[in-house]
């Protein structure tokens, strides 16, 4: 990272906590707007509970529709936080500092949004508890642990709890800063309770650094398992063309990383525009994430290609019929075209150019495209396979979403945006203490005739440094 704005600790506190300790003018209208969409979505859900699943477009043979496609999409987005945060923390990449918190928080709200849709999809969400928890002693009915519908909650639940705890632990030092900066007595009291009396002793910092690395190492295997388990919702089903594929695990993971990292890039652009974080998120950061995206997108495309090759290689007529359905008739064919063009054909060539990679607007545009494409990818995996599930032609069918489903899916998008806005009002989206450490460890050094920035590597163990005092 060559681009850098050196700021003092006080300037960092003032800039990064400004929107928390004061109320920006746009904040309330934005929250009200998003809250209206969320309430509308919940109202639609209430209507669906009252009238039954008949108000959706789900019908035989397509019993999985918008809700499940949306579930897989949000699980994918949630992978961004851990992908960016954990891997960059473990490799001690300097450019992680301004973006880790926002990426982690996006994970939390995306996971919550992901959990919405299957809960809504079952029609009577409270019954899910019978499936998961072994508590109904009187009837003697227990969870069927052989079913992916028990695996899913255990994987997604583990990921949600782990990610939430990860965010909370990494937030403690910033809560202490907020405690010290808050003017209002009640606010100060709340932050004082939340930061657990953190003072910044050597011991507390040492454990914070270890926590970041240790939790990253623990959450990464969970991150890999979650989307694999989600892919098994499809892959372990016998007799559904297009789903029963051994490549689904890694294919889903790389797809999740593709959409998730794109979402982080989009969030970076939004953070610069909405919160004025241009002193922290520089064109260099966009450049770095775009380079990462090129690798991820290309790997994803390779898996997508392999999935098709292996499906077609068997020359089985039902599989060929399904693939023809996916790329041929209206609306599947055009949707397939949009999916491939938006998720790979437009963005990747654009990211090859440095000036586009460094442009926040272009990055925002291309990453939005990727996520449109990746949403369609999940839709195209779910629906066409179910339409031709039966070999008897009279049992074939199609699917079009009802207004209720559309409103509930829109609600999940508003929910994530609203969650991010509310979080950013109470807590800093950029880790303040981490930025301060980065500023302090950064120095300009002269190499030959050039002055270049150099960074002291953080987190080295005690014995690495000179311990004259203890000899």
């Amino acid at each position, binding site marked *: 990272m060559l681009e850098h704005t050196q700021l003092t600790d006080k300037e960092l506190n003032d800039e990064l906590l400004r929107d928390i300790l004061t109320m920006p003018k746009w904040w309330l209208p934005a929250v009200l707007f998003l809250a209206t969409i969320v309430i509308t979505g919940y109202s639609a859900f209430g209507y669906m509970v009252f009238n039954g699943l008949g108000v959706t477009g789900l019908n035989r043979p397509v019993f999985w529709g918008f809700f499940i496609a949306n579930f897989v999409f949000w699980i994918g987005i949630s992978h961004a936080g851990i992908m960016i945060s954990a891997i960059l923390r473990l490799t001690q990449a300097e450019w992680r500092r301004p973006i880790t918190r926002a990426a982690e928080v996006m994970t939390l709200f995306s996971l919550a949004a992901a959990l919405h849709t299957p809960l809504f999809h079952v029609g009577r969400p409270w019954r899910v508890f019978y499936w998961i928890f072994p508590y109904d002693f009187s009837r003697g009915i227990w969870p069927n642990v052989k079913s992916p519908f028990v695996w899913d909650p255990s994987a997604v639940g583990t990921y949600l709890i782990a990610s939430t705890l990860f965010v909370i632990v990494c937030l403690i030092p910033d809560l202490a800063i907020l405690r010290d900066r808050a003017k209002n007595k009640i606010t100060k009291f709340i932050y004082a309770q939340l930061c657990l009396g953190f003072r910044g002793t050597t*011991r507390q910092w040492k454990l914070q650094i270890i*926590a970041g690395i240790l*939790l990253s190492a623990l959450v990464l295997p969970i991150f890999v398992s979650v989307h694999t388990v989600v892919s098994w919702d499809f892959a372990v089903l016998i007799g559904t063309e297009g789903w029963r594929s051994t490549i689904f695990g890694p294919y889903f993971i790389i797809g999740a990383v593709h959409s998730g990292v794109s979402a982080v890039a989009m969030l970076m652009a939004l953070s610069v525009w909405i919160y004025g974080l241009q002193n922290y998120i520089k064109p260099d950061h966009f450049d770095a994430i775009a380079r990462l995206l090129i690798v991820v997108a290309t790997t994803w495309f390779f898996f997508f290609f392999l999935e098709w090759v292996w499906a077609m290689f068997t020359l089985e007529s039902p599989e060929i019929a399904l693939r023809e359905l996916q790329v041929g008739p209206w609306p599947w064919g055009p949707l397939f075209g949009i999916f491939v063009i938006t998720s790979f054909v437009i963005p990747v060539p654009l990211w090859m150019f440095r000036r586009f990679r460094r442009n926040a607007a272009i990055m925002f545009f291309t990453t939005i495209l990727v996520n449109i494409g990746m949403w369609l990818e999940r839709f195209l995996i779910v629906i066409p396979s179910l339409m031709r599930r039966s070999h008897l032609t009279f049992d074939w069918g199609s699917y079009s979403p009802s207004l209720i489903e559309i409103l509930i899916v829109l609600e999940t998008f508003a929910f994530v945006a609203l969650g991010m806005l509310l979080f950013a009002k109470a807590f800093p989206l950029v880790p303040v*203490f981490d930025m301060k450490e980065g500023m302090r460890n950064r120095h300009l050094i002269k190499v030959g005739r050039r002055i270049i920035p150099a960074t002291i590597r953080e987190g080295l163990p005690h014995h690495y440094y000179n311990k004259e005092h203890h000899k």
Partner: protein
Amino acid sequence: MAKRSVLGLYIEEDSAADALDHLRDAGFQDHEYEILTGTPYPEGTFGEAEPQHHLYRWPIFGALTGFTISLFYTSITQAAYPILTGGKPVLAIPAMMVILYELTMLGAVIFTIIGIIFESRLPRFFMGAYSEKITEGYIGVTVTTEEDRTDKAEEALKKAGIDGEIIRGWE
């Protein structure tokens, strides 16, 4: 005897390191003083002792707990409601593996978090001598000792050139 804490603030890292030298010269032990900073510094920056911890034991204990709970959950529920599928054993180990893995990891994460909080000596209900300037970039050296030794501590802190006045607090 009741303990009191005193705090001296410094702008420069070297001054804080000098303060620790003066405290050692005045007979204060490593456990009696602490460095307070707004950001993590490389270990040993101020010549302080290396904090010892047992954090790495927590995830192992948590993983074992999570694995045990998940083993009970998966095996007892299957045994309580046995469904024979395709003539295979009632306890379907490949299916159990998913839940065993997830809950083992969950146990490891939860115990790690508890470990981090416990080993960080949190929650701390009384702040003792503390200044809000610490989160603005000042470096604090705080000494927690018996009331009759606070004068000695203050003297050692002042020798290193504190910024402002000594801050006092109760433990």
